[in-house]
């Protein structure tokens, strides 16, 4: 499974859940696969998607808040996992697309090939943390996680892209992204 297949699989089964997307390929793939007003595309501030999602989850008690994160982003802000574990937001679902690389800048390796990020989540107090490596497992886990209380983390192992990245950029302005997302929450 590559990032596109994984993002398409996950976004296809979303209903009204709020999604905060990490910067780079993850935002671009999500925008291309299924642009929705419930998506917040974080184009800068690397590392903070989980913190933004946590702020939304703590203030919006009804709907599930899903963070589409990457291994590079998670490693940049491991403290956020500890906060999620400590605060226990039931409506928080963390999906980490892990290609063991900084894909947007040319596939420089991260250290997630050696460090099991789902185990860090478990140790940090997430109620559930699991790794999936294929589409079948991803569909099964997602359908269960959308129905159960968290905080939960699903680590989705994906393959790296080879060569040029053929995916468009998010065409909404940052202000439009924010306004749409806020109108979806109201």
């Amino acid at each position, binding site marked *: 499974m590559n990032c596109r297949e994984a993002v398409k699989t996950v976004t296809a089964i979303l209903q009204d859940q709020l999604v905060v997307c990490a910067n780079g390929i993850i935002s671009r793939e999500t925008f291309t696969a299924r642009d929705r007003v419930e998506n917040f595309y974080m184009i*800068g501030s690397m590392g903070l998607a989980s913190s933004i999602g946590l*702020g939304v989850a703590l*203030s919006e008690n009804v709907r599930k808040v899903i963070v589409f994160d990457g291994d590079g982003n998670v490693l940049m802000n491991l*403290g956020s996992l*500890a906060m999620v574990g400590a605060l226990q937001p039931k409506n928080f679902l963390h999906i980490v697309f892990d290609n063991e690389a900084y894909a947007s800048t040319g596939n420089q390796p991260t250290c997630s090939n050696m460090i099991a990020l789902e185990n860090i989540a478990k140790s940090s107090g997430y109620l559930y943390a699991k790794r999936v490596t294929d589409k079948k497992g991803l569909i099964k886990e997602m359908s269960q996680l959308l129905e159960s209380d968290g905080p939960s983390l699903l680590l989705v192992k994906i393959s790296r892209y080879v060569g040029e990245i053929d995916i468009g950029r998010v065409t909404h302005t940052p*202000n439009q992204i*924010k306004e749409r997302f806020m109108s979806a929450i109201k």
Partner: protein
Amino acid sequence: MIRSKDFADELVSSGFNFFTGVPCSIIGNLISELTDRSDVTYIPAVREDVAVGIASGAYMAGKIPVALMQNSGIGQCLNALTSLNLIYELPCLLIITWRGFNGKDAPEHIVMGETCDTLLDTIGIVHHTLSGDNAKELITESFNHIIERKTPIALFLKKGVID
């Protein structure tokens, strides 16, 4: 000197209802006051840029947020402020303690103490400095700034202004 309880009351009665941050000794009592209140939330953050990220999420979900930090934290959250808050127009009130003011403090505070206000000027964040007699007025002004201009605003707090 302003009592921390009165300062917290003023923030809450002005409409701020979501608090997060990283401690500094100058605001130790203020953070205790906010933590103890049942009508608002104080979320202890692991880092200042994380506090700004959480505040931004809370704002989008309808809260009017405050992020509290020492001026050393400006260094940690410059990227969040420039590549999140300023470009998306995601506002929050930054209450920043001013360590190293006039070069009188421990060595680690001196450089940031001399430059923290200029740093905010450089990235275009409006800031004011709190004193014993302007707190009420500046808190109201900050709230109005957030509603009308939708960008972060900072209030610097030097040692000795709040108990």
